[in-house]
């Protein structure tokens, strides 16, 4: 700790509270909290787009070839473009910007006790590139032949040749958008990791860092170390599309399976890139609302690192039917099933944290508990798919769709709602209406299971995820299967219908909600020790840290919490 407090206080005043114009404040800000809100709102907007796509194609599946209200008739090409971009948007433009970029930006400087990210202008650039990537994606819908429809995994040769995908510019724009998005998150990730490594408050040692920060940092490192081959692959695929090279064309000495390796070498760690932040939020929330220390802090940390390392050695379980060597498939079956051990351990640790605590069922706690329960379902069904023998049957059925929605929905939607309802008072200085949020919680969770439980049954019966109208294949479907499709779609409609409730509550509370005090949940971590919302520069003076983040219900103290920066 080279710098002294006097020096810090001086530096803080220097870049403090001058008046900024409207444009500079909202669009050109280098303040990590404003950039977090930009990411959050952009992610929420694109989430609405992704949800709209899901509405359209679920309507087509339930009521084939009837005009969908608010869209019209869904053609085969439309359907492919909708499912492709639903997947891509929900992962790259919702889960990533909200879970990592928005919460990472907001939480890391506050939780480690400093005034901003280490590279604020790089941070601003990261959001701007992200915004451009979203615009490029939007543009891909308006080119000749329509948007890209080759699935979010973009397998060649379908994605490599215009005569197969029937759209010339769509796949290239899509690929460019994804590549730009990667650049944005590489810049952001370097910022996150460097900030957490270097800018911690004096006294904050490695094991005093809140789990949410650890998880976002480990996720950023996983992203940085896994995305490279796909960046190279994207360049190669783009040349295949537009220049005429044959990297992935078997006729010309290329290999389409190579793309699958490059894609999934990134794609599987990516699951953990978005999972880990959500697990971090859950750790913060369950300790706060059960007034207990996190059970086995170091075990959670080492387990997370172990999961991260292992996640680089499971990718080929996406390719069991792509023609890889069966001996190789055995190896990847074993590594895939192995990775369920650290995740199961994490679940047990969280349950052990809850055990014997004085639990209060506030809204963030409900979401956090729902996360544990629903993600468990996703994890358990993953074991079916990790076993290469079973996967040959389940591959590309709705069983797979249901499985990864039981992982991604808890991560991207439940995790986000948990984080938003927990940190809303800090972000905006006001409280949301709890009753409205509880109604929203119960309906959303019930409908989520209503959508995806039937899909497990459908998938086990052989329902194929790429068929957009079973009227063309009557021998492959049964009347009861169509009933389940309708049930899933109706569940989705109800779930979408209650989301405006949350949004109305969110935006109303942002301006008119009950004012929040600095530390409404009586939590220990540093972000709760500065005013709500935190001013420019966050803390004055910047805090020093004396203990770990989870010292709840410590013996011999009047309060059941013990802020990290409290000297006594």
């Amino acid at each position, binding site marked *: 700790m080279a710098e002294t407090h006097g020096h810090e206080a001086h530096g803080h005043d220097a870049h403090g509270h001058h008046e900024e114009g409207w444009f500079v404040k909202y669009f050109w800000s280098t303040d990590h909290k404003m950039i977090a809100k930009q990411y959050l709102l952009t992610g929420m907007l694109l989430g609405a787009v992704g949800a709209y796509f899901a509405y359209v194609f679920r309507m087509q599946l339930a009521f084939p070839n009837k005009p969908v209200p608010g869209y019209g008739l869904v053609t085969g090409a439309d359907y492919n473009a909708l499912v492709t971009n639903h997947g891509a948007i929900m992962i790259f433009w919702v889960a990533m910007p909200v879970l990592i970029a928005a919460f990472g930006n907001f939480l890391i400087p506050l939780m480690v006790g*400093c*005034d901003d*990210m280490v590279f604020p202008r790089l941070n601003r650039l990261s959001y701007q590139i992200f915004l451009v990537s979203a615009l490029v994606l939007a543009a891909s819908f308006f080119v000749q032949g329509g948007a890209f429809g080759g699935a979010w995994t973009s397998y060649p040769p379908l994605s490599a040749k215009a005569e197969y995908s029937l759209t010339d510019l769509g796949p290239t724009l899509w690929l460019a958008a994804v590549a730009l998005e990667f650049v944005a998150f590489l810049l952001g990730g370097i910022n996150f990791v460097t900030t957490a490594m270097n*800018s911690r408050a004096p006294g904050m040692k490695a094991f005093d860092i809140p789990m949410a920060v650890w998880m976002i940092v480990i996720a950023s490192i996983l992203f*940085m170390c896994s995305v490279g081959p796909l960046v190279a692959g994207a360049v190669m695929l783009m040349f295949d599309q537009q220049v005429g090279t044959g*990297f992935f064309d078997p006729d010309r000495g*290329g290999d389409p399976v190579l793309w699958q390796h490059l894609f999934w070498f990134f794609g599987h760690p990516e699951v953990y890139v978005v999972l880990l932040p959500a697990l971090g939020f859950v750790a913060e929330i369950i300790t706060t609302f059960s007034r207990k220390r996190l059970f086995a802090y170091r075990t959670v940390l080492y387990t997370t690192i172990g999961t991260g390392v292992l996640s680089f050695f499971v990718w080929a379980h996406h390719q069991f039917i792509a023609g890889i060597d069966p001996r190789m498939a055995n190896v990847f079956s074993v590594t895939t099933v192995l990775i369920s051990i650290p995740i199961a351990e994490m679940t047990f640790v969280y349950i052990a944290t809850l055990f014997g605590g004085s639990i209060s069922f506030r809204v963030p706690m409900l979401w956090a508990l729902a996360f544990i329960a629903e993600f468990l379902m996703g994890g358990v069904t993953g074991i079916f798919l990790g076993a290469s023998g079973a996967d040959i049957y389940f591959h590309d059925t709705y069983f797979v769709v249901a499985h990864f929605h039981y992982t991604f929905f808890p991560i991207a939607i439940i995790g986000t709602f948990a984080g938003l309802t927990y940190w809303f008072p800090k972000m905006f200085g006001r409280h949301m209406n709890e009753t409205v949020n509880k109604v929203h919680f119960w309906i959303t969770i019930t409908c989520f299971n209503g959508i995806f439980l039937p899909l497990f049954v459908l998938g086990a019966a052989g329902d194929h995820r790429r068929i957009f109208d079973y009227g063309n294949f009557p021998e492959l479907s049964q009347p009861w299967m169509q009933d389940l499709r309708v049930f899933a779609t109706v569940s989705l409609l109800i779930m979408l219908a209650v989301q405006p409730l949350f949004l109305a509550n969110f935006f109303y509370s942002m301006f008119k909600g009950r004012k929040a005090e600095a530390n409404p949940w009586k939590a220990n971590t540093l972000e709760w020790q500065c005013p709500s919302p935190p001013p420019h520069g966050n803390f004055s003076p910047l805090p020093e840290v004396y203990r770990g983040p989870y010292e709840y219900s410590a013996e011999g103290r009047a309060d059941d919490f013990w802020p990290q920066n409290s000297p006594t």
Partner: protein
Amino acid sequence: MVRPIATTRSASGVPTGRLAVWWVLASEIVIFGGLLGSYLLHRLGHPEWATYASHTNTWAGAFNTFVLLTSSLSAVLAHQAAEQGNGKKAANLLLATCGGALIFLIVKSFEWTAEIQHGYTITANGFWSFYYIAAGLHGLHVIAGAIIMLIVAADARKGKDLQRVELIGIYWHFVDLVWIFLFPLLYIAK
């Protein structure tokens, strides 16, 4: 813009700028790693690529290797000068490194022109596709590095941000290192 206090802290003991450059390099290594790994696997599966590779100009490649390695030497000397607080000398040495980058690119452009004129274009076959993509990606890194180096040198001449001389040097060594892999893989292995 005044730098936030966060930028001045160094809890890990490594200066923030250097730490960030190392993370940039970590993500670059996997980009080139993925590309060269793909090339290697293709090469092993296609023995006939050796004949295509025999048409590359080994002497031009060797000369460029020599130029790049020498330019790294002046980058190290620039770092040394910056450590001693001699911004002007550091700037001049960085300009020498940029000169190396320029020679590298000029040689490269003659090489590529000759190859394209002989019909070895990017779409000729798998080897030439990898050749142009890998060397092209590396070339982009050379150009980007030279541009950043010019900016750093301009600041260093005024005695400003001398720590950046070391950072661009680290990056330059990486660009060098990538070439050390590309040269044998694309030129020598025949």
